[in-house]
C-alpha cells in the first residue's frame, strides 16, 4: 500500500515539476524577449491572475471532477449562462447585486446536482451528460436574452473596479508618476477558493474519498465507501465552483451575451491536464491546475506583447500543449504497465 502511494506521488510530482519548470522557463523567456516592453514588471505578472481569476476557480472544479475519473465540458456555457443571469436580473428584473449573486450560486449547485445525479446514479457517461449540459446552458443563455446586456448596477460595478494596491513593487514611469501595482478582489476570492479546495481534497474525508473512487472504483466500493454519493457531491462542488467562476468572469467583463466564454471548458481541461491531473482519475492537484492556467495566461500575454499574432494562435498553442501532455501521460501510463508486468 505504502509503495503504491509513493509511486502515485512520484508520478504527480513528475508531471507537476514539468509544468512548473515550463511556466518559469516561458516567463523568463518572455522577460528576455520583450525586455523593452516592460514584461518583467510586477503588474504584468499580476494581470495573469486578474484576467484568469475565474478560470483558476473553474479549473479547480474541473480538477475535482477529473480526479473522480469524470469530466465536465459544460463549464464554458455555464459561465455564459451565469453572466447572462446576473446581467438580466440586475438590469431587467430589478434584483439587487447580492440577491443575483446568491441566485447564481444556487443555480450552480442545482446544475451540478442534476449532472451529478445523471452521472453517478444513472451511470451515464460524464462526457455525454455534460455535453448535453453544455448545449443546454448555451441555449438557455439565448433564451434569457439574445442581445448583449451591460451591467450598470452601481454596487456590482464597485465590486468590479475596486483596486487593491500592493504595498510593494511600485515604480516610476517615464512621466515620473509613481505606479503602484494592484489587484482586484476577484484574485483574492479565486486564491481563497483554491486554498479551500486544496485543503478539502487533502485533509477531509470527502477529499480522500474522491481520490479513492478515482483511483479504483471497485476498491473504493469494497472498502465500503458510498461511491455514488461521493461522486454526486464532487459534481455539486464543481457546479458551485463554476458558479463562483461565472460571477468572477462577470466581474471582469460586466456584461452578458450569448457567445461569451466560448471554449472556456477546453482551457479549464487543458489547465488541469497540463497541471498533472490524470484523465483516468485518481491523481491531481489544484495547484498544478493553477500553473496550467498560468501557462495559458502567459501564452496570451506573449501574443498581446508580440502584437501581430492573431487570437486564434492561443487556441492552437493550448491544443498543442494539451496534446503534448496527454501523450506524455499516456506514455507514462503504458511504461508503468510494462513495469508491473
Amino acid at each position, binding site marked *: 500500500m505504502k509503495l503504491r502511494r509513493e509511486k502515485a506521488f512520484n508520478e504527480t510530482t513528475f508531471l507537476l515539476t514539468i509544468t512548473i519548470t515550463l511556466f518559469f522557463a516561458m516567463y523568463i523567456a518572455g522577460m528576455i524577449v520583450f525586455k523593452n516592453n516592460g514584461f518583467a514588471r510586477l503588474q504584468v505578472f499580476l494581470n495573469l491572475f486578474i484576467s484568469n481569476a475565474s478560470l483558476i476557480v473553474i479549473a479547480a472544479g474541473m480538477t475535482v471532477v477529473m480526479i473522480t475519473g469524470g*469530466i465536465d*465540458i459544460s463549464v464554458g456555457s455555464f459561465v455564459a449562462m451565469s453572466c447572462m443571469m446576473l446581467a438580466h436580473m440586475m438590469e431587467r428584473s430589478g434584483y439587487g447585486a447580492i440577491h443575483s449573486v446568491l441566485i447564481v450560486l444556487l443555480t450552480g449547485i442545482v446544475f451540478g446536482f442534476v449532472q451529478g445525479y*445523471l452521472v453517478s*446514479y*444513472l*451511470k*451515464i*457517461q460524464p*462526457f*455525454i*451528460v455534460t*455535453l*448535453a*449540459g*453544455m*448545449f*443546454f446552458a*448555451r*441555449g*438557455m*443563455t*439565448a*433564451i434569457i436574452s*439574445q442581445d448583449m446586456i451591460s451591467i450598470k448596477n452601481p454596487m456590482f460595478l464597485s465590486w468590479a473596479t475596486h483596486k487593491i494596491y500592493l504595498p510593494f513593487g511600485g515604480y516610476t514611469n517615464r512621466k515620473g508618476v509613481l505606479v503602484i501595482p494592484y489587484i482586484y478582489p476577484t484574485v483574492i476570492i479565486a486564491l481563497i477558493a483554491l486554498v479551500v479546495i486544496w485543503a478539502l481534497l487533502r485533509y477531509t474525508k470527502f477529499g480522500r474519498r474522491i481520490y479513492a473512487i478515482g483511483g479504483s472504483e471497485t476498491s473504493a466500493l469494497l472498502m465500503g465507501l458510498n461511491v455514488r454519493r461521493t461522486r454526486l457531491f464532487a459534481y455539486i462542488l464543481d457546479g458551485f465552483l463554476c458558479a463562483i467562476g461565472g460571477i468572477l468572469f462577470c466581474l471582469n467583463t460586466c456584461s452578458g451575451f*450569448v457567445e461569451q466564454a466560448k*471554449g472556456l471548458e*477546453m482551457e479549464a*481541461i487543458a489547465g488541469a491536464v497540463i497541471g498533472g491531473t490524470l*484523465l*483516468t482519475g485518481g491523481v491531481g492537484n489544484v495547484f498544478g491546475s493553477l500553473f496550467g492556467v498560468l501557462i495559458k495566461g502567459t501564452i496570451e500575454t506573449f501574443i498581446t506583447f508580440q502584437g501581430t499574432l*492573431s487570437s*486564434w*494562435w492561443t*487556441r*492552437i498553442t*493550448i*491544443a*498543442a500543449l*494539451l*496534446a503534448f501532455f*496527454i*501523450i506524455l501521460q*499516456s*506514455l507514462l*501510463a*503504458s511504461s508503468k504497465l510494462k513495469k508491473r508486468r
Partner: protein
Amino acid sequence: MNEKLKRITHYRLFLPLICLALVLLVNMIKTPTFFHLSIKNGVLYGYTVDVVNRASELVILAVGMTLVVASSAGTDISVGAVMAVAGAVCCYILSGGAVSVNEYHAPWILGLLAALVAGTVCGAWNGFLVSRMKIQPMVATLILFTAGRGIAQLITKGQITYIRVESFKLLGANIPGIPLPTPIFIAIIVVLITSIVLKKTALGLYIEAVGINPTASRNVGIKSKQIIFFTYTFCGLLAGIAGMIATSRIYSADANNIGLNMELDAILAVALGGNSLGGGKFSISGSVIGAYTIQALTTTLYAMGVSADQIPVYKAIVVVIIVTLQSEEFNRYMRKFSARFAARKAEVAK
C-alpha cells in the same frame, strides 16, 4: 396479440421510427403546409424536401459516428471542426489565398481532393490518439474540437473566403435538370457504399467484435487497434465530405459557423437510432433515420419561431431523455417498479 406487440416493440428500428412519426405528426397538426410539394423551374420545393436536403450532412456524419461509437465506445466530438477545416482547405486552394474570387485558381477537383485529404488526416490523428495512445476518445477528439476552428481560421486568415463560381455551388444546390438537390444524392451514395461494404465484407462484424470486447477480439486474431484507427479515419473522411457540402451551400469558408453544433446532432442521431453509446452492435439505418428525425425536429422548431441560438436547449433535453431511457440503471429501477406494481395489483385482485 401480446406476443405480436412485443415483437414489434423489440424491433430494432422501432424507437427511431416512432420518434420520426411523432415529429411528423406534430408538424401535420402545427403546420398543415408541411407536406405540400410544388415545382418551380423544374425543381421540387417544400418542407419535406428541405428537411431531407438539410439533413444530408448530418446523415453522412451519423454514418461515421456510428462506426466510431461501435468500435471504441466513445464519440468523435471534432467532426464539426473538421468540417470547417475541410471547407477552409478547399476554399484556400480554389481561391489561391484571395478573400473573394470569381474564377477558380486551381482545378475544382484538386480543391475537393484536398478537402477530403484534410478530413482524413484529422480523422487519422484522432484515430492515432485513441488506438495507439489509448486516450479516452472524447478527450482525444477534444484537441481538434478546439484547435480545428483555430486552424481553419489560420488557413483563411480569419476572413470568410468566397468562391463566387456557379459550378462550385452545384454540390450544395441543384444540378440543372434534376429536380432534387445534390446533397440528397451524395448522402444516399455514402450510406449505400458504407452499408454494402459492411454487409459484404467481414468489416462490420469486426467492428462490432472490437466494440464489444477489444481484448477478446485481439485474441481471436482481429487487429483491434487497426479497426479503431480505421473507423476514426473514415469518420474524418466523411466529415470532410460533409464539410464540402456545407461549404458549397454557402459558397464560402466560414471557419466559425460551418458544422457548428453538428457534433451533438451526430451523437444524438446515433443514440436516437437505437444504437448503444457503449459500443458494440450498431445499425447504420437506425442512425440515418435518427439523423432525418433530428433535422425534421430542427426544421419544426424553426417553423415554430424558435431562434437558432435557443435550439440547443431542446436538443439537449432530448439527448438526456434518450440516454436516460437507454441507461441500465434506469431500466433496472423501472423493472423493480413495475414488478412492485404488478405485485400490488395481484394483492388487490386477491
